[in-house]
């Protein structure tokens, strides 16, 4: 019964206890974090099972029923997201144990606490059924994220400040839009809002509210042309922060857009301009992301630009406006998180051995780190869209949906970006395959890093093969019947 909130509470408790531990018994901070993540993951899985068995779970925080109190509403899609987020955080936390303890040294307790908080924030965003609570959770996730991303080498504070400014503006626009909706309806609860909006006449201000909310979320999710912060923020920071944030932030924001479209505005008539603008921006994001990724020498920045293109995939799918494309976007939220996690984890392991991630620095990796590279190849293949990896199937739905709606440019964008990904990744693989490793290279592959990475990489195949199941059980029931 309390499973919904119990996915979140261990993380918050973990953050507080890790801070306490940091100033008393600092060796305890890491185990506390690991236990918190593990507990949260356990409850998330339990929640997913119970949601699959009994349908949407609702939790009244403080015992106040909506619309007066705050509720958590977890349907199958959000339960899946919760499992995904907690799992990816857990794997990151386990795989980067050495970094967290060495690199952050005496700050490791604070780092662990912020790690828990950002995960809790993202999970809360997924679970909440209240628009204003969503804003607070966005800020919890973002604020801890700024700190995690800002702690790094020379340029990371600037990149993080840039992210902070843009992210705050995005969140503020979202807040403004929520204010608009509140003023027009008098409610903040998603289900209540949906009821009122469906019953009230369509007005200009309502369109304005939808526009402002979406604008804010687009800014937050780094949709072109608001993507400026992303490559810097993920490309400069410590590998562990990048690995934690990259699979979560943009995907969770896409989740929020989907949630708002299907839970708050299903009956509302969204002005035609918005989907048109969104698909155009999404297509532009795909092209710009691919081209910019091409021009990067640093492989982490390259991955970050691929993320920009991936955001385009998802936004395009959401706004194309048919069931198939929406399915594709929702599936891609899962797929993209998983493959981003694989790639960033692998790159993090490599960066620890090799330092700078320029192409020239990656020679002979296939020989020195075969397992890490095998996982990296799987992640890359998924990004390219090779069956039976997960990335192929979401791309399939997106292509199919785009074709059904006649969005040929978007379709071309998807294909071009796949092809560009082939070039990008094989450029890296060529270096790692053909060039002999330098004399001084002493790469170490430790089982504690390889195991989580291997699990995630294998998950890409497993999830790909069960994508039919995922669509049936988690996604199909969520998309409103009005969307054909």
């Amino acid at each position: 019964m309390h499973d919904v909130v119990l996915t979140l509470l261990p993380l918050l408790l973990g953050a507080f206890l890790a801070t306490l531990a940091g100033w008393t018994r600092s060796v305890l901070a890491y185990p506390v974090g690991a236990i918190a993540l593990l507990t949260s993951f356990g409850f998330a899985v339990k929640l997913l099972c119970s949601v699959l068995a009994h349908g949407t779970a609702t939790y009244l925080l403080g015992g106040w029923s909506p619309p007066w109190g705050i509720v958590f509403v977890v349907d199958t899609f959000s339960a899946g997201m919760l499992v995904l987020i907690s799992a990816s955080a857990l794997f990151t936390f386990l795989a980067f144990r050495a970094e967290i303890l060495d690199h952050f040294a005496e700050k490791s307790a604070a780092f662990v606490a912020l790690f828990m908080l950002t995960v809790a924030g993202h999970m809360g965003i997924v679970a909440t059924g209240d628009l204003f609570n969503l804003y607070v959770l966005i800020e919890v996730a973002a604020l801890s994220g700024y700190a995690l991303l800002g702690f790094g080498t020379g340029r990371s504070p600037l990149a993080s400040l840039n992210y902070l400014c843009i992210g705050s503006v995005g969140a503020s626009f979202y807040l403004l839009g929520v204010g608009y909706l509140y003023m027009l309806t008098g409610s903040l609860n998603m289900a209540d809002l949906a009821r009122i909006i469906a019953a009230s006449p369509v007005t200009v201000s309502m369109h304005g509210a939808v526009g402002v909310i979406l604008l804010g979320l687009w800014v937050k999710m780094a949709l072109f042309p608001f993507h400026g912060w992303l490559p810097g923020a993920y490309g400069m920071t410590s590998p562990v922060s990048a690995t934690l944030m990259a699979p979560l932030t943009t995907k969770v924001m896409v989740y929020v857009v989907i949630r708002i479209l299907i839970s708050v505005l299903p009956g509302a008539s969204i002005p035609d301009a918005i989907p048109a603008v969104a698909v155009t921006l999404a297509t532009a994001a795909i092209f710009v992301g691919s081209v910019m990724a091409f021009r990067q020498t640093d492989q982490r920045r390259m991955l970050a630009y691929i993320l920009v293109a991936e955001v385009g995939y998802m936004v395009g799918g959401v706004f194309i406006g048919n069931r198939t494309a929406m399915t594709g976007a929702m599936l891609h939220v899962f797929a993209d998180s998983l493959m981003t996690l694989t790639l960033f984890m692998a790159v993090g392991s490599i960066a620890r051995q090799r330092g700078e991630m320029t192409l020239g620095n990656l020679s002979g990796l296939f020989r020195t780190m075969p397992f890490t590279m095998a996982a990296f190849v799987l992640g890359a293949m998924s990004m390219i869209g090779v069956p039976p990896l997960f990335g192929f199937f979401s791309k399939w739905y997106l292509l199919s949906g785009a074709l059904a709606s006649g969005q040929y440019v978007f379709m071309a964008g998807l294909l071009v970006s796949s092809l560009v990904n082939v070039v990008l990744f094989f450029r890296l693989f060529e270096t790692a395959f053909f060039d002999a490793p330098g004399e001084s290279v002493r790469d170490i592959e430790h089982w504690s890093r390889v195991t989580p990475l291997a699990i995630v990489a294998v998950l890409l195949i497993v999830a790909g093969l069960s994508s039919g199941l995922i669509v049936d059980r988690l996604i199909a029931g969520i998309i409103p019947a009005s969307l054909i």
Partner: protein
Amino acid sequence: MYSIYSIQPLLAVAAPLLAVPGIISARTPNIREAWSFAAALLLLALLACMVPAVLAGHTYTWVLAEVLPGAPIAFRVDAFGMLFALVSSSLWVVTTVYSIGYMRAKNEHAQTRFFGYFASSIFCAVGVAFSANLLTMYLFYELLSFSTYPLVAHHQNEESRKAGRKYLGFIVGTSIGLVLPAMVAVHHFTGSLDFASGGIALGAADSTTLTVLLCLLLFGFAKAALMPVHVWLPAAMVAPTPVSSLLHAVAVVKVGAFCIMRVVTGTFGVETLQALHLNDVITGVAAVTMLAASLIALSQDGLKRRLAYSTIGQLSYIVLGAGLMTTAGLTGGMLHISMHAFGKITLFFCAGAIYVATGEKYISRLNGIGYRMPWTMTAFLIGSLSIIGIPPTGGFLSKWYLLNGCIGSGQWVLALVLLVSSLLNAAYFLPIVYRAWFCAPDQAQHSGPVREAPLACIVPPLITAGISVILFFYPYPFLNLARLAAN
């Protein structure tokens, strides 16, 4: 005629993959190669179990996962797939023997990787053969592209890096850029990708769309090396010879031709294509490729490059068979998969044997080599005859059926093209034989006593050459399968 739901197809597909962990973990080279043999024999045994039922007209099916609506990952063993799987797997055994001889004689590096990826390539080829729908076929097709990349780039030098780039660029570029959207469109129009669904109904899409789709699929399966997407094949010849012989004469390229044939018969359907006269597109492209490739082959001095262009030409025979849309034509096309496989692999084996024994790669330097390597060059002669289509070799039979198909459907031009192409085949193969036997050796190392390549490099070409001859007299397993499939 019934369908047997059984896990056997999956087991057969997975059999080569089973060898991979063994190959990687083996302590000594002998144990490693034993794994390859074990997997190959297991695969053959599994296929043999299914052959009787398939010959009786039944099919085996197995669904692995329901991934997309109307397009699960599923396997189906029918006559055509069985034919291709039999060819690939039986030649895998022979090639493994040959690889052992070749790789050890040349003292190649990274042999474990080589055998590992070799096994996984066969896995993909069998997977393509047993695919029940376009999606499954695409899956294995893509995996095949990526698992042959390390083989093409085996030498890890600048030349193989360039070849690898070209290879991937063409193969993956076309499969993602052309096949994927075409597949999505087919799924959009028909709601299914299954080969047995009878193809796209005539009214589902207008003829322009169908033409575009056909072209996308025709050129998208670039492994079939239709012009102008054939460029990768000559480039891929930098790979070690066992790779060229099994993959770039049999498994990989025939996967391309196989896919085109499947798509033509299964996805579009003969009726639809004939009604829209789209078969002319197929035969046209095939005829042009056939002649052009043969002409280019004439001018090649590199032995393997000449063989590669010959392969490009011969693959078009198969595509031509698909485009003829008659029973005889289809039979011929399918039969050509096996006949050409045995003939061409013999030639590649011989080229490799020559390279191992003498280090020669160019035709102009092969004068009088027949005296030094009589066994090899005998096998080479038989292989050439089979490719040209002169009895008593298997190549004659497939060409006979193709010619019958042309004449039967009144396509006299195509019949003429076939004959001219065969003449050209003779024109680029017989000079090599002539040089080998009738020119005085101008290289010192070619004269003197008989000094052949190691035994493991000699026996395989002799075996395949022998089979080429036997197939002329006893073509029944393949012929029956092809006939069954064509009907």
